[in-house]
């Protein structure tokens, strides 16, 4: 075992990369849940985004286009969820599960001819002087553009939810859909838009895994990250900045356990690989005592009967 082989600067830099898919999917889901909808299909939307983005990037040679298509694919899959829950009044838990099962199958089908291919590489940004600084440079100024986009998106969602009228309406719909309906807001329309937004974010998060973090396509490669993203929203008590914090924490756990595997620690690989899931459970237990910040209408369907 050789722990000195672990470079702390590289560790933090790769932690940020590992956290980004989680962050993207979780802030998207946060918006969905703020509107009072529980979409358990994050895993399915992520994996669909992962293959859609991967295929597009390989065919077109442009990773950026891959991310755009991944967002569209994620949103397209979430449309199915929107139809089921907003028009057909189906149970949200069951609909979300069906989305995940369907997405896993669909992605496996789409990805058959892409196994073992290397995608075109996304260039890391390079700012003269800043990116060349020791320590700070590789950690803060040496990543790909999507990573910064994720952080900017978190900030934007925070600002919109806290300060804008749109955010207020979204929260009103999520807290009490009957009152929002009585005030004349289009509950169903707002929720559909939120669902589509969440789908697009999850799709991009998935593409980040297949295009940047891994980068290659394997069946079922999201390996529960979509579910951890769901847990993360609970962990963050529906607050965007705490989602960022949580994502970095889980990214850290993942990266540290991978580094420990590589360094050959005496703990068997399988037990290290369990750790992100076990830590998710522990964190959920610690934080589930406080449910006061959950949107009051979360998971309840709305039907304007009068």
């Amino acid at each position, binding site marked *: 075992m050789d722990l000195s082989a672990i470079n702390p600067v590289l560790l933090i830099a790769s932690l940020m990369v590992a956290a980004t898919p989680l962050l993207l999917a979780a802030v998207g889901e946060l918006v969905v849940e703020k509107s009072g909808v529980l979409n*358990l299909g994050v895993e399915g939307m992520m994996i669909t985004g992962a293959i859609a983005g991967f295929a597009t990037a390989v065919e077109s040679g442009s990773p950026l286009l891959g991310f755009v298509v991944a967002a569209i694919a994620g949103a397209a899959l979430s449309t*199915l969820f929107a*139809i*089921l829950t907003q*028009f*057909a*009044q*189906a*149970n949200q*838990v*069951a*609909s979300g*599960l*069906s989305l995940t*099962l*369907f*997405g*896993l*199958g*669909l992605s*496996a*089908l789409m990805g*058959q001819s892409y196994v073992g291919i290397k995608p075109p590489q996304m260039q890391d940004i390079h700012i003269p002087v800043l990116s060349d600084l020791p320590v700070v440079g590789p950690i803060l100024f040496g990543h790909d553009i999507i990573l910064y986009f994720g952080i900017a998106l978190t900030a934007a969602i925070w600002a919109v939810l806290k300060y804008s009228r749109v955010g207020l309406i979204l929260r009103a719909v999520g807290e009490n859909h009957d009152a929002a309906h009585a005030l004349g807001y289009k509950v169903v329309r707002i929720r559909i838009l939120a669902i589509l937004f969440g789908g697009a974010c999850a799709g991009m998060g998935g593409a980040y895994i297949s295009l940047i973090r891994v980068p290659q396509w394997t*069946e079922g490669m999201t*390996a*529960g990250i979509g*579910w*951890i993203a*769901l*847990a993360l929203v*609970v962990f963050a008590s529906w607050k965007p900045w705490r989602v960022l914090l949580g994502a970095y924490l889980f990214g850290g756990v993942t990266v540290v356990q991978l580094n420990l595997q590589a360094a050959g620690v005496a703990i*068997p690989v*399988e*037990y290290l*690989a*369990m750790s992100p*899931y*076990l830590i*998710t*459970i522990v964190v*959920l*237990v610690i934080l*589930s*005592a406080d*449910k006061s910040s959950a949107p009051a209408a979360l998971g309840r369907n709305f*039907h304007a*009967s*009068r």
Partner: protein
Amino acid sequence: MIRLEKRPQPSRAWSMATPLVAVLATMIAGGLLFAILGKDPVEAIRTIFWEPLFGEFAFYYRPQLLIKGGPLVLIAIGLSLGFRAGIWNIGAEGQYIMGALFGAGMGLAFYPHEAWYIFPLMVLAGAFGGWLWAMIPALLKVRFGTNEILVSLMLVYVAEQFLASMSLGLLKNPEGFGFPGSRNLQQYESAHNADLIAGSGMHWGVVAALIAVIFAYVLLNRHMLGYQIRLTGEAPRAARFAGVKPARLILFCLGASGMLAGLAGMFEVSGPSGQVSIDFNVGYGFTAIIVAFLGRLHPVGIMLAGGLMALTYIGGDIAQSNMGLPSAAIQVFQGMLLFFLLAFDLLTNFRLRLGKPEVA
């Protein structure tokens, strides 16, 4: 303009009809999918639904129907109890793995000793393993209010890693030339879950599934606990006023579904699958969710739905070898089924009305 009007009572007729309508819709949408993949859609649908039952080699495929359907029904029956009460155990796959590991572990501990009591002990161990794994989300939910959906699902990934560790370590076949995987239980007579009538596919797991169907039916229709489960699902507030203890219900529903999933895993590993290996689990725990819903959470419905789902597995295999239909296409097909089912369920609870909405 189409308008939805809530029915005062859910329609019984539609509740029975929706699974059939959903299957038909899935056949059509699935046919389209197969056509896009460049396969003859009619031939593909015929291969999946007809070939295993009445085709040339049906004598070989019909027993498979029991082998695939048994674990699906066994798991889905357990899940349906919780789903009815709004308790969502979606980690059956993990409980299935743990049941298999406990069951196989118990059997292998006796190797090479032969005795009549080994198999019953394995059954107990398998049930215990699944139960234990389901008790984790159950106790956390009862004690801390932790979301059982997320915890049970996280435990699937933990169980998969544990399975890998076991098949590479403790349970590895010492005479296996270093290959991962345990001894083959099919070659260890006392631990082998053989067909009761040779070649019929009828092993102890299928018997257990049938017993579970009967038990669940009696429980839900003739027993106080079953009544409480149904009441909690349909009117949680009323249930609380009626003195239903939510904690007891959570422990029972998760425990029972974990136990049944564990049993399914144990019967599979000691019978059709034969050995513990890294990827011996094939996603029955997740497909069983579709089976539970397709069967309308009703024991008899689940039995029929399990048969249908087994059919798509077998038919999918045939279509794969005969027509080159990718196995993932069958997964998509099964996913679609749940979609259509949930969508058409609208008709059970709502009426469609044509015309302009009136001003209230």
